[in-house]
């Protein structure tokens, strides 16, 4: 019953008025940003990162966590009402959610989404509570070579599985690793790539990079997109109620979606987007009449929505137990912890139980809050979508500028955001994934450190990475992923993501 005692301890930490307030603020702002089309969880978390600098570490991570899973809830609102995904993981929800809205059942779709999201999240949290302590004590016994291999496979999987061209994803991870080396070298103290600038001695800061390549770049690319989208429906509380048949049809998709989400969320590189796509495919497979899909089938909304929220919560498993994030958003969470002086890794649960268990307890609280926010207050979010983008856009830009400026009271940081914004937009145009860059950037120091330590111990012998069976398997998986990436680039065929999209379109 140690788990219960730990949870009780966590609730004690999470239920203080301050933490409760920031948990609410986090899920509220997360939903808010998630609802806005074109701006996803990554932008939401990076935009709110500076706000948390003034908070104690546990409170900060509770709020940022809330922002993240809150945006997964909110993302589906725009999908259903505007046919524009609020976040990438809710893109699938457009397929049946929008047809439901067109036939006057937007309320039902929104209601089912909230319920499915809630159950998905609960499944993810249970998996986290059950597996985290065991995983982290196992991870504490890993040596440097094994740890290096774990990080390596995590990066390779995240770069090659998620989106677009796999080779380009790998490249972006390495660009991130290189950007991470800027600043003083941990071992020798020598300043690398700083051009003599004292401001760069501590490395490039995370916030301008994240805000630039996600916040600013996303605004630029969604600027033209969102214009002209209009919400026609009026959502009343009465219209939310699903029929008995809707409810019955949603139960099994939610169960299957939750299970799928937990598994895919835990694995590196897969995450919420893939989970929702897979769940949709599964539901279509098992449906008695697959032709209903794409025309407003409730299973096509309930399954993916539970899957992406389950995955969002399960993504915290590797992040908190191993210190290895499976996605860029999780990497950003780790970055936030590091800014607060907490070294993420296997010993996080032992050294900072208040942060770990407090965060988990806040997940329960946050999801209940989200249910309250999303069902009775759905009208508020719908109204938010009616605000013309011409008014929202300058507000978001100003918020980004204020946020960045407030960290160091430095105008230079605003120019840095601008630079990374343009860079991020440019990378988007040539289909280079900025998310992979961010993962590499945050994990860079860890990669270098564990590589250096392993080779120091083995006296320069590279075979140390393939000695133990565990690291051998991981290195082989990495090699397989890299090999497949290069092979698929030359075959010129569609990558895994293109194939996936095609499957969904059918």
């Amino acid at each position, binding site marked *: 019953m140690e788990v219960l005692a730990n949870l009780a301890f966590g609730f004690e930490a999470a239920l203080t008025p301050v933490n409760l307030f920031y948990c609410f603020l986090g899920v509220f702002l997360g939903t808010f940003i998630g609802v806005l089309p074109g701006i996803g969880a990554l932008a939401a978390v990076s935009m709110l990162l500076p706000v948390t600098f003034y908070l104690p570490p546990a409170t900060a991570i509770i709020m940022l966590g809330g922002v993240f899973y809150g945006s997964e809830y909110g993302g589906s609102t725009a999908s259903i009402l505007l046919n524009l995904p609020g976040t990438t993981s809710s893109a699938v929800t457009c397929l049946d959610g929008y047809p439901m809205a067109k036939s006057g059942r937007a309320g039902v779709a929104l209601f089912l989404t909230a319920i499915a999201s809630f159950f998905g999240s609960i499944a993810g949290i249970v998996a986290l509570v059950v597996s985290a302590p065991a995983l982290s004590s196992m991870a504490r016994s890993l040596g440097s070579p094994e740890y290096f291999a774990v990080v390596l496979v995590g990066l390779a999987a995240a770069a090659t599985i998620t989106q677009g*061209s796999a080779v*380009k994803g*790998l*490249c972006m991870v*390495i*660009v991130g690793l*290189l950007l991470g*080396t800027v600043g003083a*070298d941990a*071992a*020798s103290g*020598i300043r*690398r*790539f700083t051009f003599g600038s004292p401001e760069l001695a501590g490395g490039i800061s995370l916030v301008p990079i994240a805000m630039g390549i996600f916040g*600013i770049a996303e*605004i*630029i*690319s969604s*600027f*033209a997109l969102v214009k002209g989208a209009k919400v026609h429906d009026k959502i009343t509380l009465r219209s939310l109620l699903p029929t008995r048949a809707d409810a019955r049809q949603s139960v099994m998709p939610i169960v299957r979606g939750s299970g799928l989400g937990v598994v895919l969320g835990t694995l590196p590189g897969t995450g919420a987007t893939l989970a929702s796509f897979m769940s949709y495919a599964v539901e279509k497979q098992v449906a008695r009449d697959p032709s209903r899909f794409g025309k407003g089938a409730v299973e096509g909304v309930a399954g993916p929505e539970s899957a992406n929220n389950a995955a969002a919560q399960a993504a915290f498993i590797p992040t908190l137990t191993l210190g290895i994030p499976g996605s860029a958003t999780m990497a950003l969470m780790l970055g936030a912890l590091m800014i607060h002086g907490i070294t993420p890794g296997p010993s996080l649960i032992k050294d900072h139980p208040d942060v770990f268990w407090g965060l988990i307890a806040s997940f329960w609280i946050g999801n209940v809050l989200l249910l309250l926010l999303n069902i009775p207050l759905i009208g508020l979010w719908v109204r938010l979508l009616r605000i013309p983008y*011409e008014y929202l856009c*300058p*507000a978001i*830009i*100003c*918020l*980004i*500028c*204020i946020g960045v*400026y*407030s960290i160091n*009271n430095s*105008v230079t940081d*605003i*120019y840095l*955001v*601008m630079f990374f*914004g343009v860079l991020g*937009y*440019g*990378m988007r*145009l*040539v*289909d*280079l994934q900025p998310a992979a860059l961010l993962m590499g950037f945050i994990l860079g120091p860890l*990669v*270098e450190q564990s*590589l*250096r330590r392993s*080779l*120091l111990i*083995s*006296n*320069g*012998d*590279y075979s140390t990475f393939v000695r133990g069976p565990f690291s051998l398997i991981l290195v082989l998986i990495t090699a397989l992923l890299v090999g497949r990436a*290069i092979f698929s*680039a*030359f075959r*010129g065929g569609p990558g895994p993501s293109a194939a996936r999209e095609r499957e969904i379109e059918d």
Partner: protein
Amino acid sequence: MARRKSNVRDVIAGLFLLLVAAAFGLGSMNYTIGTASNMGPGFFPLMASGILGVLALVVIAAAVRDEAPPEPEPIAFRALIGVVGSVAAFAIGMRWLGFVPAIVLSVLVLAAVQRSTRLVPTALLALGMSIGFWLIFAKGLGLPMPAFRGVF
């Protein structure tokens, strides 16, 4: 004879990656490389940029052979200029004029690139946002940001 197509988008991406690899690779030569058992500060960046260089060549080689390249996405110049200008306006305003003018400038610059801009709503937006944000951030959260500075 049909002109051989190649994927321009990916060629540009590959060249950009190659450039990054070259810059970091050459840069790391300035530092001690060391040996695997005793890595100097240049070791890791050199290794990483080497791998990046190879992968960038793979991207370019694959792009040149690509037979059915996708249509490149058009550059949203209007949005790019507007958003970048708006951020720059905030930075300049913040440096010389203070918080309130910075927000006003930022809103106006963005509005200037939009076709649908109407004068009165934009002015109201600029005014409302500058005062509202100043109340929230400077008064409410106590961030040290003067409403006006310098010339005023």
